[in-house]
């Protein structure tokens, strides 16, 4: 058990390291190879030669790639000095650099935007897991029935509808036509939890629709498999109530693949959250990353990308470990 968890953690660290190399190559090596001076990218729109020289010095872009990568990595874990003669600054860990638009540390922008994306993803995850799994179970138990057929049609439509279309559609109805929630905007949870939830409801519905459909299909398939197992027949033969048979004997093993896929889906969910918050005009991680692309503020784009990748990989490792604790079959003997 301890060995499995340790192995998983080491695997996670190796992948995190790989991602950091990938990000370094993407933001520092590739632009240069394609004839784009990274200093120009980092300095923003049409900089003068003095600025470019300053940025080159400050970020150490004139040094070797190995040196650059080392400084980049050290910044993330231990903080680093930015030094260009007159302009000295200490960037504390986790240092992802400074925005060239407003001189704010990238890390603080991420910390500001994270609650928006996290609220959106978390609420949607709760919604689609509850609705998807319960309708999936119901479909599997009454296979071929009216509910099953309606659910199949709805989930087929659900996986074919992009969030940026359903989002606009729902906003049109809820906000502009029926005036149920006027002027949908993000409210901080600490400011007013009721308003926070009220304003997030349309976004949660939109984001969860796609995944509800997926999890409904998955749960249905998984349940149909376990319902055909011998131990379910044994449980029925023992005279257990149908509710106990389905809820305890069939559902629990059926949930195992769903937990795995949920772990894998976190990254995709994050991507969906970015599209949803863009549609609803919330200032989350996606919004700051897209704004950064449009204003050519590369440090912010880089910071958000790295942060999201780290976050997702850590979450995956956590899912794996929790999973090993819950389900003894996962652990290698």
């Amino acid at each position, binding site marked *: 058990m301890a060995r499995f968890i340790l192995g998983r953690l080491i695997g996670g660290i190796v992948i995190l390291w790989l991602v950091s190399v990938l990000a370094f190559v993407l933001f520092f090596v590739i632009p240069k190879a394609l004839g784009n001076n990274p200093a120009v990218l980092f300095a923003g729109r049409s900089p003068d030669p003095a600025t470019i020289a300053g940025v080159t010095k400050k970020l150490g872009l004139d040094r070797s790639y190995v040196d650059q990568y080392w400084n980049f990595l050290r910044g993330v874990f231990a903080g680093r000095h930015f030094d260009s003669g007159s302009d000295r600054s200490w960037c504390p860990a986790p240092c992802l650099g400074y925005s060239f638009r407003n001189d704010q540390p990238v890390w603080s922008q991420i910390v500001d935007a994270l609650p928006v994306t996290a609220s959106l993803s978390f609420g949607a995850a709760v919604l689609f897991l509850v609705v998807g799994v319960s309708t999936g179970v119901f479909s599997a138990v009454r296979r071929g029935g009216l509910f099953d057929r309606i659910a199949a049609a709805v989930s087929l439509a659900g996986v074919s509808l*992009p969030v940026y279309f359903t989002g606009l559609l729902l906003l049109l109805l809820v906000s502009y036509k029926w005036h149920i929630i006027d002027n949908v905007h993000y409210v901080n949870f600490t400011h007013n939890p009721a308003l926070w939830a009220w304003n997030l409801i349309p976004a949660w519905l939109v984001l969860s629709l796609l995944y509800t459909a997926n999890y409904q299909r998955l749960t249905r398939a998984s349940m149909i498999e376990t319902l055909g197992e011998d131990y379910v027949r044994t449980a029925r033969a023992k005279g257990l109530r149908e509710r106990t048979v389905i809820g305890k004997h069939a559902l629990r093993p059926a949930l195992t693949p769903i937990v795995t896929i949920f772990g894998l889906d976190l990254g995709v969910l994050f991507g969906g959250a970015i599209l949803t918050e863009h549609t609803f005009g919330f200032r989350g991680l996606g919004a700051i990353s897209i704004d950064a692309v449009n204003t050519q503020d590369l440090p912010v784009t880089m910071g958000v990308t790295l942060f999201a990748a780290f976050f997702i990989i850590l979450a995956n490792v956590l899912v794996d470990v929790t999973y090993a604790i819950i389900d003894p079959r996962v652990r290698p003997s």
Partner: protein
Amino acid sequence: MTAPPGEMMVDSVAAPAVVQTEGRSLWRSGWIRLRRDKPAMISGIFLILLALIAIFAPVIVSLLGHPPNEPHYDLLDPNTAAPRGRFGGMSWDYLLGVEPVNGRDIFSRTVYGARVSLLVALLATATAVIIGTVLGMLAGYLGGLWDTIIARLMDLLLSVPSVLFAIAIVAVIPNKAFGLSGSGLRIAVLVFVIGIFAWPYIGRIVRGQVLSLREREFIEASRSLGAGTFTVMFRELLPNVAAPVLVYSTLLIPTNILNEAALSYLGVGVRPPTASWGDSLAVSSHGWYSIEPIFMLAPGLAIFATVLAFNLLGDGLRDAFDPRGGGR
């Protein structure tokens, strides 16, 4: 290594004949099953029509519409920049009305949008299928360190948020690269970005198939006849993974259509003024859709219908060619 002449002859006469009849019957029986699946057949016909619309977009637009990038300021209210008349200025001249702000023909832009959508999605799927099949076969057949590296890479690519990486890649690519520029370069970048995050879906399926195939007799037979790794992979394994690859690549196309539209919607896809469904949705946002829903309904329903049709066709193909398959 040469086999004794007797065995050689038996093999060359018997084995290929068996493989061929099996191959033919698989494809033919699959086609018979598919023909009975009404939603899949209707979707297939719809998609053929859509492909024709995309190919002949200039002809269709010259007959029924106006050039997609041509502004029509005379159709807009100068104070609000919204089209005059109801339903976004719909008329026999402008079948779906005109866009706000610059008055471009929505019908033409929706027809031209099919081009970008299908082109990017099909090329990205082709990229994913090529990389996924080759690396999936290598991982499954060679095993060991190859398998570990490729399987881990697939896990990594499937778990990171591809939208953010796509945004980042678009941000670092200069305006001119690889001898391309403008829209052509953006389309190439989109194909690369979408394909690179999509190949693990195919790679996993191929790897799983190859893992079960490689212990079978015909592979062993081929190997004992002295066939090299590449011969076994491309002559023996490839024909056997073709059916599942076909099924799952059909199911990958709709995902890629959604990804292309998403990136164009976020403003990192094809460059304006090139028409694309995602860009049309972006134009309709900022509250314009609340004035006239047609701005959003035309591109939105186009995406929905196309994605739904590919999903129905893919489900039909899966039921026809891979009866055991299901789930993901």
